[in-house]
């Protein structure tokens, strides 16, 4: 009960909701850097995945990146980047860059794999029918395969978003900003209110993002296909 009270008290303190290390700023940092990482990763991984799924070429790349994704622990990736990012910039290379680069790198594989699977998993009969109707390869990709694959694409973005938010949190132990800083500081100052306040905020952000993407996936499911499966 002590901890709950301390956490509630810390979260309710107006002093923690302002200034350069207040909750809104840390939350903004966390969200903005996560969104940028997600966007950058998607810009590369999504077109690549769609193209591989559409043409069937280079599918080994998808398989190996799916495996590599699990074998690359974010803690190790951030760590391994530090010696190199510090060569670029001794200050930011020790705080911002390693985690940010890790976020972008680790967001790629889930987006790539799901974009590929979404398109490759489209019913071949549908594709044949479209081809029979005289649709070109481009029309099939954008008019049929992508709309059908949308929920799967969103699932890929969801996995990547969850991964990116977690990596940003972990980055706080390596000098990165964001909500993880409250956990680092709470731990260093033995302030359980701040530590748990940070945990609550981080968990809320991650679960909120998860819920948002699940809703998005539902909305994106083509109603035509939904009735098909139901019937």
């Amino acid at each position, binding site marked *: 009960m002590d901890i709950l009270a301390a956490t509630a008290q810390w979260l309710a303190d107006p002093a923690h909701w302002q200034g350069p290390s207040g909750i809104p700023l840390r939350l903004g940092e966390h969200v903005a850097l996560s969104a940028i990482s997600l966007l950058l990763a998607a810009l590369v991984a999504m077109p690549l995945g769609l193209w591989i799924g559409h043409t069937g070429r280079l599918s080994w790349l998808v398989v190996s990146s799916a495996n590599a994704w*699990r074998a690359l622990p974010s*803690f*190790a990736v951030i760590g391994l980047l530090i*010696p190199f990012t510090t060569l670029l910039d001794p200050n930011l290379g020790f705080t911002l860059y390693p985690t940010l680069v890790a976020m972008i790198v680790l967001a790629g594989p889930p987006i790539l794999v799901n974009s590929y699977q979404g398109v490759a998993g489209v019913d071949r009969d549908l594709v044949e029918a479209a081809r029979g109707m005289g649709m070109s390869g481009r029309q099939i990709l954008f008019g049929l395969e992508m709309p059908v694959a949308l929920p799967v694409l969103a699932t890929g973005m969801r996995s990547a978003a969850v991964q990116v938010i977690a990596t940003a*949190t972990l980055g*706080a132990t390596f000098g990165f900003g964001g909500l993880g800083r409250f956990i680092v500081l709470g731990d260093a100052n033995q302030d359980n209110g701040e530590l748990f306040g940070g945990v609550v905020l981080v968990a809320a952000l*991650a679960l909120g993002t998860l819920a948002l993407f699940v809703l998005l996936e539902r909305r994106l499911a083509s109603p035509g296909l939904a009735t098909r499966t139901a019937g």
Partner: protein
Amino acid sequence: MNGEPLIRWDWLSEHLGPILGRVEQHLYLAVIAVVIGFVISFALAAVSIRRRRLYPFVTLFATAVYTIPSYALFAALVVATGLSIVTAEVPLIVYTFILLVPNIVAGFDSVPQDVLDAADGMGYTAGRRWWQVELPLAVPLVVAGLRLATVSTIGLVTVSAILGDNFGGLGYYILDGYHRHFPTEILVGGLLSIALAVLADVGFVLLQRLLTPWAAARSAAR
């Protein structure tokens, strides 16, 4: 970092003993988590198979838990269970659920009804049918889940380094190297933890061949 070379080989050769000790600790923490995680996941999967209506809730729980960033979970548990092995293992265990439960359920779902009917017709008792027919046929997907869980757990063990010098396996070197501005340590910890995950992945591929010889025979016959 301050003109320090990326790798100082003399440090490496002087610390072979402790490095090996960290590898051992890394595997120890990972194996405990995967074994306990597997037992709990098997139970959750068994319940989900019997009571289908519960399955979405089990999945939701496992997904939600997996979504909470590991750093937050480790840090929060310190207050409850201190700097103990329990604090290190609980997050590792709960993160395996989302990788194991769906694969175990899918494994048993993949057993064709015809095969079950045939076993019944041959007079198999329920227990013998489960042990000799259902389980072997479910093995490929179950092992696939174990493979994912093991590789991912080996990666997450590194995060337990935030619990202090007594934990973290190879992650200890990543954090210590960061604090001491010593790239050699970071590279040793990072590269070896990735190597462990890759080795485990390869090990599971071999295990799968061993456990389901018919799959290899079938693909060779093609």
